[in-house]
């Protein structure tokens, strides 16, 4: 019986991550776990006192991430795209388009819950956004490495999001995140392929690990139950 599961970490590319793959995968595993736990914690707390404004507030940060990815990916192409194969420019642009669709879709969900779609960086997303853009300035692969971690972390949130939203009948939110879940597979596969294709030197690999470790630290700080509780209090 053939295993039909597709693992985007095994996407074919170059050998640029050889020697650091174990740490790369360890970072991805840990960030997925913490995001899963935090999302579960959020919906457990939410169930005790369901309030659509709280869910809207929780989604606002995620909504901002979608549009920030659009800005980031386009800047990535503008600054560094000519060093990439043309198919990768196309795929990064395609990802950007999908992130814009996600911003629109999550925005509708936020509005349907009585929230306001962010048009500037929400406080809860400042550290995340600032770090991503710092990575962009540092190295041509650093921002990609950082969003690769961030996108992977999102994949840890899907199952508890579907379960939590189903509990409260937020079917539109589930539908939106089902599509995002599909697209994340593309985004994480593309991230891995770009990194493994273009990382050439030890300096490249160190910058990739620095970005990934940094984004994991932010994920740990962003998704703790305490932060979630603060989000709920603020809402």
């Amino acid at each position, binding site marked *: 019986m*053939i*295993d*039909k599961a*597709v*693992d*985007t970490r*095994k*996407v*074919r*590319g170059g050998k640029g991550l050889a020697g650091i793959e174990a740490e790369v995968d360890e970072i991805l595993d840990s960030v997925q776990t913490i995001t899963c736990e935090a999302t579960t914690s959020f919906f457990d707390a939410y169930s005790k006192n369901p309030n659509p404004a709280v869910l809207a507030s929780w989604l606002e940060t995620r909504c901002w991430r979608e549009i920030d990815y659009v800005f980031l990916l386009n800047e990535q192409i503008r600054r560094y795209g000519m060093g990439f*194969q*043309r*198919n990768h420019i*196309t*795929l990064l642009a*395609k990802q950007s388009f*999908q992130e814009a669709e996600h911003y629109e879709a999550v925005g509708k969900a936020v509005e349907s819950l009585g929230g306001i779609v962010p048009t500037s960086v929400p406080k809860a997303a400042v550290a995340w956004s600032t770090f991503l853009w710092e990575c962009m300035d540092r190295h041509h692969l650093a921002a990609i490495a950082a969003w690769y971690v961030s996108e992977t972390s999102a994949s840890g949130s899907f199952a508890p999001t579907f379960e939590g939203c189903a509990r409260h009948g937020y079917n539109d939110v589930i539908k939106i995140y089902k599509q995002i879940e*599909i*697209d994340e*597979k*593309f985004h994480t*596969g*593309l991230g891995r*392929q770009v990194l493994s294709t273009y990382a050439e030197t030890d300096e490249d690999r160190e910058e990739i690990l620095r970005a990934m470790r940094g984004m994991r630290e932010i994920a740990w700080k962003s998704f703790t139950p305490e932060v979630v509780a603060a989000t709920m209090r603020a809402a």
Partner: protein
Amino acid sequence: MDLSGDRLQTLPLSLVVADLHEAASGVVSLILRDVRGVVLPEWAPGAHIEILLPNGIVRQYSLCGDTGDAEQWRISVLNVPEGRGGSKFIHEKLAKGDILQASEPRNNFLLEPAEDYLFIAGGIGITPLLPMIRRVADEGRRWTLLYGGRERRSMAYLDEIELIAGGDVFIRPQDQYGILDLKAVLHEHTPRRLVYCCGPGALIDAVEEQCAHWPKGTLHRERFTPRTRETILEDGEFEVELARSGRRIRIASDQSLLSALEDAGCKITNSCRAGICGTCLVDVLGGVPDHLDDVLTDEQRESGKVMLPCVSRSKTPILILDL
């Protein structure tokens, strides 16, 4: 020819025919360069490219030049008079200076690390093996080549092979030696030796039979089966049967399988449409997929049971999908 965006996306390179000459009787060798003079993408031994000929035919050819030469690629084409136009066009119409659209190099025939290699080539099947032999020789590893062909003058690159140091070479034109004596080289499994074979279907079948009970992963082969390939790849068309309804769909050479399935009303989850995300995976019930994706494992590919229709195609005239 009306090319869809999908097709052009898979053939992003514009190459100029910088040189074209006879490599052996019935075999023409093409030197290809980027029209803008920029360096070409890297490739590894075993890689092939897909080329759109000016007459609208799409064909796949192994890269057989120097992997370290980023300025130019070399492919070689056997004239198949009974074919439906691909090789005939190249041999009779293609000229120096012509422009061809081509894909990035793809590799379904990777050279795996080993201490010792046995290469078995039949005719034009020498093309993917030649860069492998050079690589293995450069790295100082042990290698043996058994190379058969109809007659010596029809066998390409004998002069180049002669210059590669370190291996045991057995050139066996059929008019002098008869068919290749596979039993002599494949009579028993040699630990830490990999076998790479490329050539006509009958040769591959015979090699597979000899190695049938050898450990998995020992034999690597790429088929050059003229009858099948001419049917499928001369014009790139094939048919898909939807098993649940029995309906058949014709997939044009310039159409992605996924697009054709969608046009036929099949709803298939997808995202990248580039062979990366794996979300469009479908079950294959019959036929042999031509895997062009970047994400399925070797085991999944070799099983022939699943495929990604966004980029992959068919090696057989009909594919039966669980749709």
